[in-house]
C-alpha cells in the first residue's frame, strides 16, 4: 500500500469511471448508498440527483467533496503467460453544491459543479496494447445553475442549464519504427466547451413513498483544433497532421428513483438509471493532414445500458448516520468492442459510509465504494487485441457541508 499512498502525491485532475467512462460519484451520501438518490431529497447534491427535490430540502447549504479513485486493471493477452497492469494513478473527481433561497418558499436556487464523465487509464509505454492506447485522460466537469419550484406541497420540479468543460489527452504508439528501433507515438490533446441540461420531478406520495424522475441531457463534447503531436520518423514528419477535431457524445441519462421511510430514522433509496449510450457509435479523430494517414474512425457501437442501485441510511444516533448500498451496472460495450482505455464489463458495486454531525450546521460525510468489474475475454474487432481484462476500483470519499 505504500506505493499507492506515494502515488497519491501525483494526483491527477482526472477520473476513473463507473460505467464505461461515466462517473457516478456526485455526492458522498449517495455514493455510500450505492449511488442511489433520485427519489429522495437527501442534501445539496440533489442539484445533480434530482433538481425537482431541491425545493424540498429543509435547509440551505453548501458542500464540497472529493472521491480519490484507485482503479486497477489486469490484462493478459490470450496465449501469453504474462499479466500486465495499468499504472497506479489516483484520479480525483470533485463535487461541490450550493442551495439557497427561502427554505419556506416555493422557489429555491442551486449551483452544482460535478464530474459526470471521465477516465484516467495509464498503461506502460511498451505494453502489449500500446498501438491501441498507452494512456487516456478524459474529463468533463459540468457547472449547473439550477432552479427548483415546489408546485404543491407534494410535487417539485426543477431544472438546470449545464455548461460542460471537457478535456482529453490520448496517447498511443504508432507502428512506424524510428531509426533507433523504437516505435513512434502520438499524443492527441484538446478541450471542449458545450451545453446541456438537467431536469427532474419529485413527488411525495400520500403513502409516504417519494418518487423522483430525472433526465440529464446528452452533451456532445466537440474538440476543435486539438493538438496532434506525432513523434514519427523525421523523413515522414511533414506528412503527418498537427491538428485534429473529435466529437464525443456524453450520453443522456434517464433515472427513476424511489424513497422509502420504514422509520423516522431510516431511509431506503432505490434507483434505476438508463444511460443512452447508443449515441456512441464511433470515436473519430479528423486530422488536418491526410497525406500519410487516414482519419481514425474507431467503431464503438455502444448500446443503452441500465444500472440498478439500492441504498440505506440509518440515523444511528442524533449525530451519527450509517449508510450502505449495493448496485449493479450493465455494460454498454458489446462483444468485440472492449478497448483497453475503457475495459468495461458488467459490474457490482458495494458501498458503505457514515455521516457525522459535528454541530447543528456542520457535517462531515465519508463514503467507500468498491467496484468489481467482471472479467472479460475478448478480441477487439478493430485492433485484433485479444485477451482478458479484469478491473477493480476502490474509491474512498469525503465531503464537508455547512447548512443554514
Amino acid at each position, binding site marked *: 500500500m505504500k506505493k499507492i499512498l506515494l502515488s497519491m502525491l501525483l494526483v491527477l485532475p482526472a477520473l476513473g469511471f463507473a460505467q464505461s467512462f461515466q462517473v457516478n460519484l456526485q455526492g458522498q451520501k449517495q455514493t455510500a448508498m450505492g449511488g442511489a438518490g433520485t427519489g429522495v431529497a437527501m442534501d445539496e447534491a440533489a442539484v445533480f440527483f434530482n433538481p425537482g427535490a431541491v425545493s424540498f430540502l429543509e435547509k440551505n447549504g453548501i458542500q464540497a467533496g472529493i472521491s480519490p479513485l484507485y482503479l*486497477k486493471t489486469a490484462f493478459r*493477452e490470450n496465449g501469453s503467460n504474462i499479466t500486465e497492469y495499468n499504472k497506479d494513478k489516483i484520479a480525483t473527481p470533485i463535487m461541490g453544491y450550493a442551495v439557497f433561497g427561502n427554505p419556506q418558499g416555493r422557489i429555491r436556487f442551486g449551483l452544482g459543479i460535478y464530474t459526470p464523465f471521465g477516465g484516467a487509464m495509464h498503461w506502460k509505454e511498451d505494453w*502489449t*496494447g*500500446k498501438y491501441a492506447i498507452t494512456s487516456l485522460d478524459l474529463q468533463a466537469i459540468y457547472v449547473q445553475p439550477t432552479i427548483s419550484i415546489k408546485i404543491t406541497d407534494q410535487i417539485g420540479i426543477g431544472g438546470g442549464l449545464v455548461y460542460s468543460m471537457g478535456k482529453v489527452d490520448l496517447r498511443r504508439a504508432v507502428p512506424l519504427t524510428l531509426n533507433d528501433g523504437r516505435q513512434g507515438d502520438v499524443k492527441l490533446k484538446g478541450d471542449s466547451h458545450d451545453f446541456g441540461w438537467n431536469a427532474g420531478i419529485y413527488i411525495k406520495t400520500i403513502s409516504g413513498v417519494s418518487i423522483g424522475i430525472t433526465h440529464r441531457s446528452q452533451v456532445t463534447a466537440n474538440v476543435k483544433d486539438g493538438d496532434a503531436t506525432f513523434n514519427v520518423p523525421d523523413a515522414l514528419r511533414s506528412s503527418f497532421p498537427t491538428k485534429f477535431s473529435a466529437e464525443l457524445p456524453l450520453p443522456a441519462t434517464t433515472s427513476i428513483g424511489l424513497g422509502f421511510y420504514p422509520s423516522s430514522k431510516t431511509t431506503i433509496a432505490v434507483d434505476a438509471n438508463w444511460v443512452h449510450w447508443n449515441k456512441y457509435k464511433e470515436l473519430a479523430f479528423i486530422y488536418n493532414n491526410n497525406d500519410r494517414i487516414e482519419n481514425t474512425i474507431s467503431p464503438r457501437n455502444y448500446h443503452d445500458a441500465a444500472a440498478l442501485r439500492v441504498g440505506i441510511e440509518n440515523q444511528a444516533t442524533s449525530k451519527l448516520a450509517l449508510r450502505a448500498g449495493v448496485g449493479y451496472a450493465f455494460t454498454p460495450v458489446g462483444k468485440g468492442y472492449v478497448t483497453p482505455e475503457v475495459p468495461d464489463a458488467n459490474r457490482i458495486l458495494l458501498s458503505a459510509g457514515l455521516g457525522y454531525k459535528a454541530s447543528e450546521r456542520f457535517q462531515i460525510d465519508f463514503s467507500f465504494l468498491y467496484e468489481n468489474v467482471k472479467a472479460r475475454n475478448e478480441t477487439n474487432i478493430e485492433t485484433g487485441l485479444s485477451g482478458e481484462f479484469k478491473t477493480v476500483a476502490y474509491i474512498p470519499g469525503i465531503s464537508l457541508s455547512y447548512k443554514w
Partner: protein
Amino acid sequence: MKSNIIYQSIFAVALLSLASCKPELKTVTPTQGNADFSRYIAVGNSLTSGFADGGLYLDGQKNSFPDMIATQMKTVGGGEFYTPFFNDAQADGTGYKKLSSFTATGDPVITDVAAQAVRDVITVPGFGKVNLLTKYSGEINNYGVPGIKLGQITYKPYGNLNGYFERLLPGNSPTNNTAYIDFVTEKPFTFFSLWLGNNDILGYATTGGASPADQPTDKATFTALYNLAASRMTANGAKGVVATIPDVLSTPYFTTVTLAALLKGVQASAPTVTALYIKTGAGAVRPATAKDYFILPFSSAGLLGKPNESGIPYGLHPLNPIESQYVLDEAEAATVADYVAYYNQTIKSVAAAKQLAVVDAYAIFKEYAAGKMVNGAEVSAAYITGNIFSLDGIHLTPLGYAIVANEFIRSINKTYAAGIPIVDVTKYRGVKFP
C-alpha cells in the same frame, strides 16, 4: 433493524477486497504437453536464420523466429538455444540494405551497409565465386542456412559452395564433404522445426525464371527428399514442426513494381506510351499484362526508357523489350504456383504421416499480406510501410518473424497438447525509417 450487522459485513467485504488490491486473472501454467523441448534445433534456410534486408546480420539473427520460440520454450523445460551469431565487431555480417531517405516524389532511397564478416572470396571451379564468412565454432541450435534448397540437403560438397553453411563447418572450402542433413543430425535433439523448400522455387521466381541454375526442383525429387528429411529428423524419436512454403507471389518483391505503376511513370514524360514490352521465358516478345510480375530490383535498375545503340528505348518497343530476368511472366507465374502447390501438398502429407505439427505458412502469409490488424498495428505486404517484410521484399522484419514465431507456437501447442506462451509481437520492430 439489525443494520449494524449488515454494515459490519459490508465493511468486512470491502476490507478483504482491499487486502488483495490487484485484480487477479486465472493462473496460466505453461506446459510442455507430450513433447520434450530440452534440445530444440531449427533446420531451414534464410527464414530460419533470421535473414533480413537482403543480408544476414546480428540484429536479424537475434530476431530469428527460432530464437523467439526457444525463449518461450524455456518456460516449459526448453534448454539453452545457440544461434551462430556474428560477433559484435562484425555485427553487420554480410552487409544489408538500409532505407536512407525518400526522393522528392516519395520513392524510397535504399543504400547498402557494407559487409564486415566476409573473410575471403574464392572461386570454386565449375561453380563460381563464393563469399566465405568468419567461421563460427560454438554450439549450434539454429541451423538456418540462407539459400539452401531441399534439393541440396544430401549433397556432400554443398558446404563448399554456400558461405553461410561453410561458416558453420570446421573445414575450409573446398575441402568440406558433410551433407547438410548429416550435419544437423550429428548431435541428439528432442524437438525440431523444419522449414525447407522455399528456395526450391524462390530462386526461379526471383530471377524471372531466366537463370538455368535456378530451375524448380523436380517434383518427384522434392517428395523423396522431404520424406528423407522427415525420416532423418524423427529417427531418434524427436517430435517437431514443419511449415509450408509461403506464397512467393504475394511478397513485395513481386507486388511492388506493377505494370500500372511503371506505365504511369513513363507516361509522365511520354504520354503516348500505352504498353511495355517484355521478353517471356519462352522467348516471345509481347506487351506486358497485369498478369506478369515485375521484380522489385527492376525499379532501381534504371533501365526503363533507356535507349540502346539503335536509339530504341528499353521496354517501350518490341525491338528492345524488358529482359526475361526482370519479369516473371504469366506462364512462369503459373509454374511457380503449380510447384508451390505441389510442394505444399507434399509437406502436408509427409507431416500427417509422421504426425508432425504443421504451420501453413502459405495460408498465413497470404492472410497477413492482404492486410491485418495485429494488436492495433496494421500490417500487410506493402513494401516498407507494411511492417512485416524487410527491405529485400522477401524476408521478414522482426515483427514479421514474431508473427511467424507465434504461428509455430500455436501449431506446436495444438499438436502436442502443450502450452508454450506466445511472444508479445508488439515488442518487435518493422522497417527502420530515417
